[in-house]
């Protein structure tokens, strides 16, 4: 793993309560450069490796470390590929096809090369209804793509998050479309007979041939008693996840870690289970040609919204939830009502504001996994119909019980704030409605809804507000170390060049993330920061490398600091020129600040939430 500078123990002087320089003696930059160049040289050997190892498998243990590490080494976000298709197509035929493809297209895997002509083998995926267009990829195509991507993502601060609308994009595309091939990240769900269930881009039916190809690869490897987890092709990673009769595939050149991409497929599967339960497995047992798409009718926005959240919602990789900052007393008051509701035979009662928790409660011994909470709020937020009236809908919490439905009562108090009451009883609608009326009365009486609205408007913690003033900075810092970092970072971010932080409380299963502030403002910048965090998270939690406590990493975009203790995890991003000692000091201050306000930013003393 490209861990540039990490240590398995905190510095000798501290006992874990103070964050000290993890590695004061070595220069992290030289170290990381060395690792970087190593990785780059590994990448050079990738193409040929992939072409003869297209059915190569990785076991989910530590064996794929190399793969992931080299993925990390891929720099730059521009794709000019579209070659995944050929790679994938070549795989399903087994070794014979590999030989023929190698002979005919020796440099097939090089990104930016022309794909093999449709007539060069019996195996191209380009014929069929999709028209057999021979597409050539040139370098300048990539820049066009960049421009279009920018338009899609929205490159201005005002556009992020709010401008994104759920729903399926580019339905007219199929696997022969150049634009489809250039999409940076594809998600597919298909059945083990090769019938398409979901595709992020393009029309599922037009992609039936592509879907069949994916099934052929997976089943072919399965037939040999093996499993395909990851195929690398140049900058593209093809990640596979098999869940019984359901196959999930991600094709990405986003340079995210294998672990996180796999985690995204897991969540995608969970979202499907939330809508249908695992009873779908039985449908396939009874009837292998079972077509699932009609059952998922109308849920495209749910999936696209989840996929979108992979690039902005830290809950998708931290596996924790976040609360809306609120005065302690108000959250407690809300919690008391929710607890009473649960006492009346309701399994879970939640008051949420967008994807943030206002308060929640569970019946005795019932606990809600943060991933279930993520999938539940995504489902409710992205389904328009919940907003129009009070609803009662079957829902499955995959981590709670993936086999069966619960019943969810959903009601929106305003555009952002809504209550979800979950019960096992299908006849409980009227009871739940009464519960909601009781809750609403309390919310109105104590004015909670307007406090909630104010909290949304004000936002959460900001790095600019960190209690380190300039006087202190210039007077108390020692050895003049502040002369570089702070001067450079004036006007951007918080003190000493801190740009952003995330603090995850391990016992509470909750995290708090600072608001985005300059210079990280656009959706694109946010995405890039989150991807840096994801890598940091993956490297800190890599089982093969043993537990790490601290990590300091610097590249041309950020200085990243991570600190893991038994109680919390802190992730912080600084200006790349930030001073290391000051950055560490700032992290300590962030932790102190979070502790100072923990009663407002975390839900304390909720019903037992950990497992």
């Amino acid at each position, binding site marked *: 793993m490209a861990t540039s500078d990490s240590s398995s123990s905190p510095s000798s002087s501290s006992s874990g309560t103070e964050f000290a320089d993890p590695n004061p003696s070595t220069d992290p930059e030289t170290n990381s450069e060395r690792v970087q160049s190593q990785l780059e040289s590994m990448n050079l050997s990738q193409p040929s490796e992939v072409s003869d190892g297209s059915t190569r498998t990785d076991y989910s243990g530590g064996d794929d470390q190399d793969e992931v590490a080299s993925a990390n080494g891929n720099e730059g976000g521009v794709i000019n590929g579209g070659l995944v298709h050929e790679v994938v197509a070549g795989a399903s035929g087994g070794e014979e096809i590999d030989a023929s493809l190698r002979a005919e297209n020796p440099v097939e895997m090089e990104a930016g090369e022309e794909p093999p002509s449709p007539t060069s083998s*019996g195996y191209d995926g380009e014929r069929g*209804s999709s028209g057999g267009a021979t597409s050539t990829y040139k370098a300048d195509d990539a820049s066009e793509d960049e421009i279009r991507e920018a338009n899609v993502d929205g490159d201005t601060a005002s556009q992020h998050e709010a401008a994104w609308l759920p729903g399926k994009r580019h339905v007219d595309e199929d696997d022969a479309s150049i634009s489809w091939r250039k999409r940076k990240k594809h998600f597919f769900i298909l059945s083990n*007979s090769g019938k398409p269930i979901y595709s992020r881009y393009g029309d599922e*039916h037009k992609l*039936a*041939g592509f879907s*069949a190809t994916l099934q052929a690869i997976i089943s072919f490897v399965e037939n040999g008693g093996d499993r395909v987890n990851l195929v690398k092709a140049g900058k593209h990673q093809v990640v596979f996840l098999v869940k019984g009769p359901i196959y999930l595939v991600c094709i990405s050149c986003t340079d995210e870690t294998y672990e996180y991409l796999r985690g995204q497929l897991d969540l995608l599967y969970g979202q499907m289970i939330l809508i249908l339960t695992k*009873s779908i497995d039985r449908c396939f047992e009874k009837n292998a*040609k079972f077509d699932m798409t009609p059952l998922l009718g109308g849920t495209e926005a749910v999936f696209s919204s989840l996929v979108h959240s992979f690039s902005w919602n830290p809950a998708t990789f931290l596996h924790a939830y976040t609360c809306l900052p609120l005065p302690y007393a108000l959250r407690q008051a809300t919690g008391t009502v929710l607890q009473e509701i649960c006492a009346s035979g309701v399994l879970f009662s939640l008051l949420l504001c967008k994807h943030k928790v206002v308060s929640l409660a569970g019946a005795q011994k019932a606990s809600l996994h943060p991933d279930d909470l993520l999938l539940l709020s995504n489902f409710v937020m992205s389904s328009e119909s919940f907003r129009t009236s009070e609803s009662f809908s079957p829902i499955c919490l995959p981590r709670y019980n993936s086999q069966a439905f619960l*019943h969810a009562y959903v009601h929106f108090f305003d555009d952002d704030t809504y209550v979800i009451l979950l019960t096992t009883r299908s006849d409980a609608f009227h009871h739940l409605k009464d519960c909601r009326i009781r809750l609403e009365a309390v919310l109105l009486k104590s004015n909670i809804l307007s406090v909630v609205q104010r909290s949304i408007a004000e936002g959460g913690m900001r790095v600019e507000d960190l209690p380190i003033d300039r006087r202190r900075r210039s007077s108390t810092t020692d050895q003049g170390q502040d002369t570089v970092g702070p001067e450079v970072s004036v006007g951007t971010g918080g003190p000493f060049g801190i740009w952003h932080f995330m603090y995850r409380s391990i016992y509470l299963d909750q995290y708090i993330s600072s608001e985005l502030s300059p210079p990280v403002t656009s959706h694109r910048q946010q995405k890039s920061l989150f991807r840096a965090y994801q890598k940091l998270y993956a490297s800190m939690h890599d089982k093969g490398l043993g537990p790490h406590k601290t990590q300091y990493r610097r590249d041309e975009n950020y200085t990243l600091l991570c600190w893991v203790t038994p109680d919390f995890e802190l992730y912080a991003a600084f200006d790349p020129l930030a001073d290391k000692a000051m950055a560490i000091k700032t992290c300590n201050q962030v932790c102190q600040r979070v502790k100072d306000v923990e009663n407002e930013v975390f839900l304390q003393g909720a019903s037992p939430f950990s497992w």
Partner: protein
Amino acid sequence: MPSRRRTLLKVIILGDSGVGKTSLMNQYVNKKFSNQYKATIGADFLTKEVQFEDRLFTLQIWDTAGQERFQSLGVAFYRGADCCVLVYDVNSMKSFDNLNNWREEFLIQASPSDPENFPFVLIGNKVDVDGGNSRVVSEKKAKAWCASKGNIPYFETSAKEGTNVEEAFQCIAKNALKSGEEEELYLPDTIDVGTSNQQRSTGCEC
């Protein structure tokens, strides 16, 4: 739901190597024919949208390799097929004799829920060759075989000239559709309070 429900049908094409499976498919999907023989490796996948009785559906056609060395792919490829098309060359007795093997192999590997009534379609291809003079399998013989296997529909085609190809695939689509018609209601369990705790302990993944 905004649009009418669409159906996807998985169609497997089987038969000895060189009988014209790929040519039939190319003629049907792309309206093209090439005299040059290229062996299919593993399988080819094509899709075609078809309208049938004002319903739109998609044929997902699995054109498999006829060579014996690919037979191990069977299970993976045949799973969940809606229709199986058997192809032989009317000028080759061996390709006709092998139909029994192909059919049985398919039924074993795909293990459809109702093997007796699984929809097959038989195609005798290359009727154009040598003006029909080199033909060794008579239509009568082929029809007798079809009758003995539960009245499999039979078509004689020329992938080269496009004769009867469209008709054959129309029939394939119709039969595949028929077999997919009866679908039950989707009724998963709901948690009942008594069992939820017990199930939870096994379902917990963390």
